[in-house]
């Protein structure tokens, strides 16, 4: 009889122990949580809500990514256009003489010929030994014809608006009076330019024959300054339509 009693108490204690261990699980939260039906329903609804939110956020993210890609593309293309414009502008400014340039070419130095003793300044010999603006114009023209991309006389760049004018003992270039000797620098095909400078019937030889001292040098690195001030056109305007 006692044995049965003990067994009954043992059974009760075991059931109690199991209950306590289950409570441990719940309070410590170590095991998987089992939800009641109502909780499960709530949790499922919450899960669906979160999934919908994730879906919406994903779509939003994709839209934003597309927008970002478009912006990046636009930025890249616009920066390309800008850099092209800047490059073109720089090249134009170089060609116009408003930007410093460098390159290989030749240097020609012209010095007036020395007058003989007793020779009159008004004599034809003296006139021949003197460098005139016409000479410079012809030399410039000849060099341009023979491949000169850019020219400079005594530090003054030759541009489309440059004048070469005689001012007594000086030559006026870009509004500046420059005295002899005249150093012409030409950037371009060195062989072609040298061939012109040394050609038998070219202006350079003619001047040398007239008694003007001429020095011709090949230069690997010529540097031209930005001596041209760009004009602000008053009369020029763009012709938008043909036949106007």
């Amino acid at each position, binding site marked *: 009889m006692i044995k049965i009693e003990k067994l*009954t108490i*043992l059974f009760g*204690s*075991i*059931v*109690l122990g*199991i*209950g306590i261990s289950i409570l*441990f699980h719940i309070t410590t939260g170590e095991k998987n949580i089992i939800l009641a039906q109502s909780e499960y329903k709530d949790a499922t609804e919450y899960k669906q809500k979160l999934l919908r939110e994730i879906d919406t956020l994903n779509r939003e993210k994709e839209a934003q990514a597309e927008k970002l890609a478009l912006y990046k593309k636009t930025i890249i293309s616009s920066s390309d256009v800008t850099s092209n414009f800047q490059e073109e502008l720089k090249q134009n400014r170089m060609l116009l003489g408003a930007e410093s340039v460098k390159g290989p070419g030749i240097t020609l130095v012209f010095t007036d010929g020395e007058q003989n003793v007793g020779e009159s300044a008004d004599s034809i010999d003296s006139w021949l030994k003197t460098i005139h603006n016409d000479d410079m114009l012809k030399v410039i023209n000849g060099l341009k014809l023979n491949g000169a991309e850019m020219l400079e006389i005594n530090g003054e760049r030759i541009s489309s608006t440059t004048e070469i004018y005689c001012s007594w003992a000086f030559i006026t270039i870009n509004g500046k009076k420059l005295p002899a000797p005249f150093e012409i620098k030409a950037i371009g095909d060195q062989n072609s330019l040298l061939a012109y400078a040394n050609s038998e019937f070219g202006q350079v030889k003619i001047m040398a024959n007239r008694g003007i001292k001429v020095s011709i040098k090949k230069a690997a690195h010529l540097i031209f300054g930005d001596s041209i001030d760009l004009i602000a056109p008053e009369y020029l305007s763009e012709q938008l339509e043909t036949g106007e």
Partner: protein
Amino acid sequence: MIVVIGLLIGIILGLAMDFNIPDAYSTYLTVAILACLDSVFGALKAYLGNTFDSIVFISGFFGNALIAVMLTFLGDKLGIPMYLAAVIVFGGRLFNNFAVIRRLVIERYFRRKKND
């Protein structure tokens, strides 16, 4: 001693067998455990006092747990924490039972010593 062994076996079994119930039912389980604990201590008291009845114990064990759970459930529905009634009643009885057990054990100990 038998209670301690039973509890240990139960706890080990519970941990090993990985029983789980929904978190929302933890209050019900707590009051049920309290009721069962009261029954076990009551049984121990009866066993020591030679008045133990298996049927009374088993019916009390499950009956008390059931009533405690039902009270808690009713309290939940009514919005009153009725599980407190079970906690107070079974808690108080636990102390009473323990006091009686203590006296009986001490009495037995001294009786046995006297006989020796």
